[in-house]
């Protein structure tokens, strides 16, 4: 990858990361962390890339192990985040006598 393109992308992504997250209220920090955790699970793509090119036993074993670990990260991350968010999202539709004290 061209170094300038690389630096440009990195710097823009840093700003974007700062910008996007600073608007999230502390109430949702746990799901946010969990979501970020799921997103870095995209290392699964990297693991598949190296596993798909492996020809010798050692790289194959290591990269298949990486695929396994990365899958736990990405699948678990998205599922657990969903579980948390269901609880937040369910609130407004949740009827009953309780009208919010405002």
């Amino acid at each position, binding site marked *: 990858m061209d170094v300038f393109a690389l630096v440009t*992308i990195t710097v823009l992504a840093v700003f974007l990361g*700062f910008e996007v997250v600073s608007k999230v209220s502390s109430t949702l920090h746990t799901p946010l962390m969990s979501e970020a955790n799921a997103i870095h699970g995209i290392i699964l*793509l990297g*693991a598949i890339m190296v596993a798909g090119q492996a020809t010798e036993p050692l790289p194959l074993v290591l990269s298949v192990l990486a695929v396994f670990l990365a899958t736990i990260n990405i699948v678990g991350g998205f599922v657990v985040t*969903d579980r948390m968010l269901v609880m937040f999202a369910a609130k407004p539709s949740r009827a009953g*006598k309780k009208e919010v004290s405002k």
Partner: protein
Amino acid sequence: MKILNESVVLTGYLVAAILFILALKGLSSPRKARRANRLGATGAVIAIAAYVLGHDIRNGAWIALAVVAGAAIAVPAARRVHMTQMPQLVAAFNGVGGGAAALVAVVEFTHGADAWAGSVIAFTVFIGGLSLTGSFITFGKLQGIITSRAVVFPGLGVLLGVLTLAAIATAVAMVITGNLLYAAALLGIGLVIGVLFVLPIGGADVPIVISLLNAFTGLAVAGSGVMLSNVLLLIAGTLVGASGTILTISMATAMGRSVTGIVFGAFRRARKSGADAGTEDRPVRTVTPEDVAILLEYSSRIVIVPGYGLAVAQAHHAAAELAEHLTSRGADVVFGIHPVAGRMPGHMNVLLAEANVPYESLVEMDVVNGQFKSTDLVLVIGANDVVNPAAKSSPGSPIYGMPILNVSEANQVVFLKRSLNPGFAGIENELFYDPKVSIALGDAKATLTQLLAAVKAAV
């Protein structure tokens, strides 16, 4: 399979990157958040499908097997975990992600690398390894396998310094010689540093470490993106690294700490930690749940301050029911939530949301602190450190400087506590001896159940 050409694959990455950004952005609203998470997952599926359909892939059976095995472990774990144990699960997921990044880097190194690529690989191996063991130690601390107190031994600081230098030397040797053994050694050093880095971090600071390690794994993934020339990994990793850093800083600020103070503070603090452990014989006013019910009768503005003890006792449902009942009789009830209540920032909100407390009743610390003066009764359930005035008054205390909920400004304060033992951070609470404070001892759930029965009986 080589069905898609390269530009279609790259477009897939672009779509995935956009979806990841929307996923993080969507978390600013609780209503849209779930859809945002689905967008993120969709992005991941698109990216991986695009790659797989655009390239010839060897070892397809092995890869598929590993994916199925990974999913078979992750899905049940994620589905079944109690909300109270959420932080350690997130820590574990983060750790395996870091481990995967380190392994990918090691494998990439076997193909040979020039100085630039070698440096990036060394960085990824080291950070990924550190994140793996650091996260597992965090998991152990939260799960109670390892003591949550700061573990410090003499010479730890020196040892860490020596190891860091060794890591740098090994990285240099690895880049120059291209020898795989150096990469393995670097991974080993990273693993050891991960352990030593988290062990001295005690109690209340653990949540911040999860966030920091999350950012580290993000950086390792970004490093993988550079070495594999994959823009999506670079963008996703950098996004997580940057957002994780911001999150870490904002949490540390919420606790009145600096990130460096948390990471390196334990070394300085270690010497005097035994000093203020002297047990007190001063009287505290204890009350029964029935007494508390009567107090609640006469209170029209009530703030409930929940702590991790509430969650441990699985009493958040009972607390939610109590709040609902009191509200239905015309009292104004809100939950005052400290940003680091629970074991992870925002954790308490998740637990109360699970118990169907409306989002609007969850009031952040800054807002609720302005309301205590006009509050009749504060019910502190299973919380201690987040209301401990030592954070303001005693500079020697480990929690000194942490913003707290100023419950003592209210007319009456009732603690529901399992015992008079100090909290997670291990600090005595002066508030227990305040004349307007009373304490109902017992398991939070049992006490709340009795309290609820007494309140209902009083109708």
